């Protein structure tokens, strides 16, 4: 019952976000600030993790393909499929739930604790629109981060394969091009747009409706990470079934 109430409250919050918009002149600045904080600010960790995970996927695949009848190009194929279909859109989103999600919850939660949200409401500002809407719009830049993650992941795999001696460059690249279906990219971008919305709104919900003090802000950040991850995993399953099943 408690969870149903929370889900209902979440959807009411999302509805409220789109009501009574803030002046575009102000909103534009807020969106650019959020793009910088949420997407550009997370690029470092996304690139770092993508590079090494791409390398690890390649090494693991190579070590498990020890049958001499299997072509080395399969290493490139497996790396491409893993990175594009799951790693870049889903795994990166879980990382973003930790990095960006906890930032969103703690910043909005602190505003709640220090009555800054009440101050907005008293002034007649739609605080949900002012605080959450720019985050949602900024997170629509997230698919670009996912695209970079795909490229860097494959690059990491190629470097690991070639310089680790697991596959020659030509075979790896041949594997990358083998049976390529561009719909898989579309599938990955559809997922990343949905995950972007989840990463912007679920942590905002946890921050906006939190009660208590500084300790509760920390607790809300942790809870927000757990729930954002759970929602991403469930939606990932549903979307995979709908789009690829």
């Amino acid at each position: 019952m408690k969870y149903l109430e929370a889900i209902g409250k979440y959807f009411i919050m999302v509805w409220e976000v789109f009501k009574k918009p803030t002046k575009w002149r102000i909103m534009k600045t807020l969106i650019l600030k959020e793009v910088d904080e949420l997407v550009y600010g997370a690029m470092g960790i996304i690139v770092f993790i993508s590079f090494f995970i791409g390398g690890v996927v390649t090494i693991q695949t190579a070590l498990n393909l020890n049958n001499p009848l299997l072509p080395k190009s399969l290493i490139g194929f497996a790396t491409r499929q893993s990175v594009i279909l799951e790693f870049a859109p889903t795994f990166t989103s879980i990382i973003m739930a930790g990095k960006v999600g906890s930032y969103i919850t703690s910043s909005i939660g602190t505003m709640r604790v220090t009555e800054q949200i009440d101050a907005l409401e008293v002034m007649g500002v739609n605080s949900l629109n002012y605080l959450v809407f720019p985050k949602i719009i900024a997170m629509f830049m997230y698919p670009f981060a996912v695209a970079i993650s795909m490229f860097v992941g494959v690059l990491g795999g190629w470097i690991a394969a070639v310089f680790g001696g697991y596959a020659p460059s030509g075979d790896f690249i041949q594997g990358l091009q083998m049976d390529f279906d561009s719909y898989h990219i579309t599938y990955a971008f559809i997922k990343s747009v949905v995950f972007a919305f989840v990463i912007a709104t679920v942590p905002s919900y946890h921050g906006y409706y939190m009660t208590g003090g500084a300790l509760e802000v920390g607790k809300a950040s942790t809870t927000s990470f757990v729930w954002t991850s759970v929602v991403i995993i469930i939606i990932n399953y549903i979307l995979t079934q709908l789009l690829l099943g």
Partner: protein
Amino acid sequence: MIEVDNIHKSFGDHHVLKGISTVFEKGKTNLIIGQSGSGKTVFLKCLLGLFEPDEGNICYNGQLYSELSIKQRRNLRQEMGMVFQGSALFDSMTVEGNVMFPLDMFTNQSKSEKQDRVDFVLKRVNLIDAHKKYPAEISGGMQKRVAIARAIVMNPKYLFCDEPNSGLDPKTAILIDNLIHEITQEYDITTIINTHDMNSVMEIGEKIIFLKNGFKEWEGTNKEIFKTENTAVTDFVYSSELFKKVRQMYIEERN
């Protein structure tokens, strides 16, 4: 002027406000006092429109709140200024940015007009060199002044203050009290202050409402509070030895 007629407010089974009626006059500093849990904050939030009373009416200059449309309520909010207990300044903005915020949100003034207005109100609250500082870089007293400046920048008709003196040293507290009182008279605002501070009660309480267990127990002025025989009020206001002596001296002086 704000007229409150028999308002009730409950949260679940907890009946917080039990039929409060009063009138807050224009150009006067009105104080709400009472023990913690007496319903002061809920009452203030009802007056601010953040809580809707379960029963009863609140009238703002003759406009019945319950009969206002959403748009009219929004416009009414813009006629209200609020000074929060912890100042509630936006951390990410400078002092100037905080004060300019309502102007940015609700007016179409040019940048220079807004800047002139911000400079004027900051000067009015005696803050001249703090424009570019962030809230974390200024003292508690200065933060309160910025909060007052932000509250009055839109020329409000109503000013609400929730314990504006909490966390301040006695000297700064008196300065803040006097500033609010002066601004109230200067701009003819209806000011309502929720306070625990007995100095404020004695100094600026042109009208005082004492709440107890959700009821209005007593109402009067800072002169009348010396004479009252209501034990609930005297037990609360004169709880310290110092105030007991002050009251005694006042009574002896009058006799």
